[in-house]
């Protein structure tokens, strides 16, 4: 291997290969590999899927089928801050829709969209299991409960 080119190797690519090595000898390695690959890249770029396909010898079409089946996987990059608004039953009954309205108004994006400045991505989810605090949302995994539409803007402003 050409040692002078080593610096050119993408560190994400190195991580991806580590992930593949970690799981490839296990039964059913595809989903854990995709999950960790998405952690590395933030989404699943086409090149990454091709690389996974070649290395673990699963047809790209099958991988694409899996990626599009599960809501966790993304084929496009997300913004810097991922907002998950819960519209599960408890949140629905306690006014989650009003919270969503306010988020849409503040960020000017709708479900599944990313703002032009890439500051926010908005996704509606069905339940994050914090029903006792409904209505809730989470931003980058941090859960905010007992939301009122009035205090949404203040929380969003904390995320640059």
């Amino acid at each position, binding site marked *: 291997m050409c040692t002078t080119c080593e610096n050119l190797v993408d560190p994400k690519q190195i991580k991806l290969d580590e992930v593949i090595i970690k799981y490839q000898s296990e*039964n059913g390695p595809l989903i854990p590999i995709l*999950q960790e690959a998405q952690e590395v890249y933030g989404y699943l770029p086409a090149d990454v899927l091709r690389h996974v396909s070649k290395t673990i010898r*699963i047809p790209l079409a099958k991988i694409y089928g899996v990626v599009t089946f*599960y809501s966790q996987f993304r084929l496009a990059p997300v913004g810097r801050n991922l907002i998950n608004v819960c519209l599960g039953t408890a949140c629905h009954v306690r006014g989650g829709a009003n919270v969503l309205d306010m988020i849409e108004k503040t960020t000017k994006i709708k479900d599944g969209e990313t703002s032009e400045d890439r500051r926010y991505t908005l996704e509606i989810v069905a339940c994050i299991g914090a029903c006792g605090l409904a209505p809730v949302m989470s931003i980058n995994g941090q859960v905010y*409960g007992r939301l009122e539409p009035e205090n949404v803007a203040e929380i969003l402003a904390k995320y640059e």
Partner: protein
Amino acid sequence: MAENQRILVCAGTGCASSGAHTIIDLLQEEIIRQGIQDRVSVVPTGCHGFCEQGPTLIIEPQQTLYTQVKAEDIAEIVAQDLMEGKLVERLLYVDPLTQKPATTFANSNFFAKQVRVVLKNCGFIDPEKIEDYVANDGYKGLANALKMTPDAVVEEVKKAGLRGRGGAGFPTGLKWGFCRNSPGNKKYIICNADEGDPGAFMDRGVLEGDPHSVIEGMLIGAYAIGADEGYVYCRAEYPLAIKHMEIAIAKAEQAGYLGDNIMNSGFNFRLKIRAGAGAFVCGEETALMASIEGRRGMPNVRPPFPAQSGLWGKPTNINNVETWSSVPHILAHGADWYTQYGTEKSKGTKIFALTGRINNTGLVEVPMGTTLRSILFDIGGGIQNGKAFKAVQIGGPSGGCLPDEMLDLEVDYDTLTRAGAMVGSGGLVVMDETTCMVDIARFFLDFSQKESCGKCTPCREGNKRMWDILDRITKGEGKIEDLDTLENLALVIKETSLCGLGQNSPNPVLATLKYFRKEFEAHIIDHKCPAHVCTALLTYSIDAEKCKGCGLCAKNCPVGCITGEKKEAHTIDEAACIKCGTCLEKCKFDAVIRL
């Protein structure tokens, strides 16, 4: 010399989001500052179950329960309670019905009427420490099981009458027996922790708060069935549950409870975690196994049942978190002890997740056979803001909404199914007069049709058509014959769908039609939404006598459809009104009328 004390701070997902970690840090700092760190320890625990009042903490041995604790309360708690032994009364829980403060957690109505078997450790041990679990009779059930023959273990679980807590209520011992008697050297067991029902979070509570109880239950099951490998399939939306489970597995391996020759019995077992990837249908057994195998999570026709041909074609037994977690108690104390709780056909205790328009949201565990009224009013503290109870939704998207006259039902698998609902995973979402039942029926179908995997036509197309009809009704465009069409479609979907998701998805519609038909008719015939939820059926106007002409409504109206001179009555242009309700909220003189 003052006695040793432990402060149990709930650090489950709910309380963590209300600031529990700051509280833990501040408590630790303050305890050191006061020099009492030798006798007072701070323990981050799993869920106390009292999410509404979070962050909560319990001080042992006094069992003092403090609720809604904030950072600024810490110094007072340490100085007054821990140093002087005096209660900080303003942080005690006040019962919403009696207005009396509870001095200990055990004498608060919320906890006093519960029977905590599966939740015994939740909130009382550090879930990251295996020694805490072992000190509370942990792995005692496993030790007992390993002294018995596998067949005797299956018999004991059968005798206990434990039924699957994930929804269907299939007898657990019977299921184990099928898999045990299935031919084959390699067998798997799986813990279904893909708790997808919106409004249910008891499995999250157990995984976060007492992960070793799930591992112990699975070990006992694996020994009984003859499996040497297992998976915990946990939804990715529960990162803390996955983290605690990973730690617990590592600790159990170090302590020799997982691996080879467990407790010198010659029994080997390995356990792995798989995170779900966001598909509700993966809670169905065959879809879940497809997902572990790395495929799209679509259900298969049964037979063959998983007990014959499951994961990678091998005999497999799947139970959910609460079921596995009940098993160690049965083996530790015996089937006779377990059957003291429950009804004739549904034994033991069940955890319910109380949410919605109720005062005490949280996790509660009661014996099977407790009435809904007791759960909602004695433990749940009744309806928020003194509003009138309308319905309780039980069993998630597969269950139904039950009205007031059904609240004296004793909750067990069979009575609820007869009433048109189901125990399901145990989510109880309470609705009051401000909830529209047509909207709720549409809500559940919206969920089911989005989560349908698309494999079979009745579920994929039928639910969509039912949703279309309900959507029309909420917009005031429904016809009275739509109600018959809905019922017909529902019956076809129930009878012909491939898996549990499709077979049960019409239940919320059927139950609401059965108990709340008048509300459907009000939408269709009178074009009115009695709960004032369906925006298309609302009209806003201004009472000229009450309006002072302050202009606040006009200033806040997002579409500028309110006009009027200062100090004179304003009017709403109904054609332009988007019915957002902002004017109603803003008006200080109750002059806006919503019909």
